[in-house]
């Protein structure tokens, strides 16, 4: 018996958002008299970090520290319409809506500050630390808190903003499929190294090296969370998971986390990730959305690595030891393809 190592490659791109009935999301932003801001959304945080990324986007746009902003998600009475958290649309669509809402609120805040400082709003800048001052004259300054208080109690202005971002529906031509599916694409390339046991067909993922281009990484830690967890899920889809192990036969469908197979903490492989950031022209600060595409390159890369290791093409997922062993038997033994 022998263990055979193999390397497999895959490269993918991924459409950000969707083309379905128009793709809108809305956001509302307002401040209290203390210059602390609330963002109201009906969007959902599934763990991907919707609350956190929109909070940073709002703070950046308003020109205030992130601590001055909190995001409330998913209350249909207070949060304006959003299609939902799917299709990698959250960061891109909701983020853009938050920018528009925050811009409007910022404009009112600067008008209030201008009135207090008796200058033109166009001459004012924020320092991101909670201060507003005249361009080139830092001494002529007012805090965002003071500006918002003045708006509320002296000037009668609402420091608030509404935002919507809509990618309108693109017609799809019945004859050619012509359409504008989405507005931007993320990219990835991955090399997976596996070890295949030619007596049992067992496949172990030894190492992953990847490069992901995601537009701007709005929060590097949230990006890392998605890429690390997503690659694990890609491994899982490649070699473990299915609700119907004998598809299209429906028998023996798993009913719990013991029979529904996923890699355990002892199966995970070292994953070295490089992130490239080519800003999306229409993305919030150039952001795209890493949430879905991060899993996709792993599936074919594992299949290609198995072929490189033992010369067996598994073109039906998942890549189970049984399928690999049947392939090795059909070939009359393992046929290592040589290290690329």
């Amino acid at each position, binding site marked *: 018996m022998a263990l055979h190592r193999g390397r497999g490659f895959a490269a993918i791109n991924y459409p950000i958002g969707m083309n379905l009935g128009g793709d809108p999301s809305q956001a509302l932003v307002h401040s209290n008299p203390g210059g602390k801001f609330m963002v109201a959304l009906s969007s959902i945080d599934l763990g991907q970090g919707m609350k956190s990324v929109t909070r940073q986007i709002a703070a950046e746009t308003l020109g205030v520290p992130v601590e001055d902003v909190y995001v409330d998600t998913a209350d249909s009475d207070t949060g304006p319409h959003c299609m939902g958290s799917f299709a990698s649309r959250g960061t891109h669509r909701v983020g853009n809506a938050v920018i528009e809402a925050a811009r409007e609120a910022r404009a009112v805040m600067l008008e209030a500050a201008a009135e207090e400082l008796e200058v033109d709003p166009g001459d004012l800048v924020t320092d991101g630390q909670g201060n507003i001052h005249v361009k080139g004259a830092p001494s002529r300054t007012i805090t965002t808190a003071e500006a918002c208080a003045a708006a509320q109690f002296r000037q009668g202005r609402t420091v608030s903003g509404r935002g919507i971002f809509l990618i309108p529906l693109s017609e799809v031509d019945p004859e050619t499929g012509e359409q504008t599916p989405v507005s931007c694409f993320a990219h990835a390339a991955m090399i997976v190294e596996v070890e295949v046991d030619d007596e049992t067909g067992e496949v172990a993922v030894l190492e992953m090296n990847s490069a992901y281009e995601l537009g701007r990484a709005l929060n590097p830690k949230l990006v890392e969370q998605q890429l690390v967890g997503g690659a694990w899920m890609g491994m899982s889809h490649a070699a*473990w998971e299915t609700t119907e192990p*004998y598809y299209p036969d429906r028998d023996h469908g798993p009913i719990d986390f013991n029979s*529904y197979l*996923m890699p355990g*903490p002892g199966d995970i492989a070292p994953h070295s990730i490089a992130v490239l950031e080519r800003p999306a022209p229409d993305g919030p600060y150039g952001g795209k959305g890493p949430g879905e595409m991060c899993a996709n390159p792993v599936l074919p890369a594992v299949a290609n690595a198995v072929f490189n290791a033992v010369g067996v093409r598994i073109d039906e997922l998942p890549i189970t030891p049984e399928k690999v062993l049947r392939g090795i038997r059909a070939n009359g033994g393992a046929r290592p393809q040589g290290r690329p």
Partner: protein
Amino acid sequence: MPVRVETFDSLDAAASALRSTRSARFFGGGTLLMRAANHGDQSFDTLIRARDPSFRHIRSESEGVSIGAGVTMKEIIAHRDLSFLIPAAQAVGGPAVRNMATVGGNLYANSPYGDLAVALLVLGARIEFVGQGGRGVEIEEFMRDRDRHQGSIVRAVVVPRPRDPSSFRFVKVSRVKPKGISLLTIATYLPQSGGRIRGARVAYGAMGPRPLRATAVERLLDGQYLDSATIERAAAAACDGIEPRTDSLASSWYRREVVGIHLKRLLTGDRR
């Protein structure tokens, strides 16, 4: 109707309650019965418990170690007299499950569960029942028609100590690391005298509906030196007379193809 729970201080009282109550089950650690109750299992409406201390004893006896049926996997792992069972007890579930799962429950578990029972099977354990005198029954007899014993309570399992610990080997093959359910489990007990195997016992888990003996393999090993030729012959016959089960982890075909490989690796000490 909600599940009733009746608790008794003595196993004997619990046993008579179990006999007299229709659709009652005896409750050990709960890993099987609470799951069934949570799922709305309609086959029982009463759970019977016992607080009897004897239910949880671990006691050395002349012919081996007597383990109360209420002893958990965790307690087996922690007990110095049972170190030979650690590989099997450690193979059961994660830490939380091992704190709950009992020896008695493991005997009644259906595949792919029941890893400890595979070890008990090769070691020739004896099952003692509450309220039944005598020596109880040999474990393979118990496994053969386990349902007949549904109505009775296992008090303890008496496990002979392997004369030479190295003569007992155990492996659980799973798809998930470090812990997953069994694709197949193999336990071998190959005591030797004069270098030859005497009284070989080999058992599998997850190959059938419950743990079973690999008698063809035992016959090939008995009286032989444990050399590579013998191991090859044993591996080739690993599935003789056995129709492996198909489940969500693997097909009957796959189990048949690899059980010999894993048996060979276990016997040659090739653990990867």
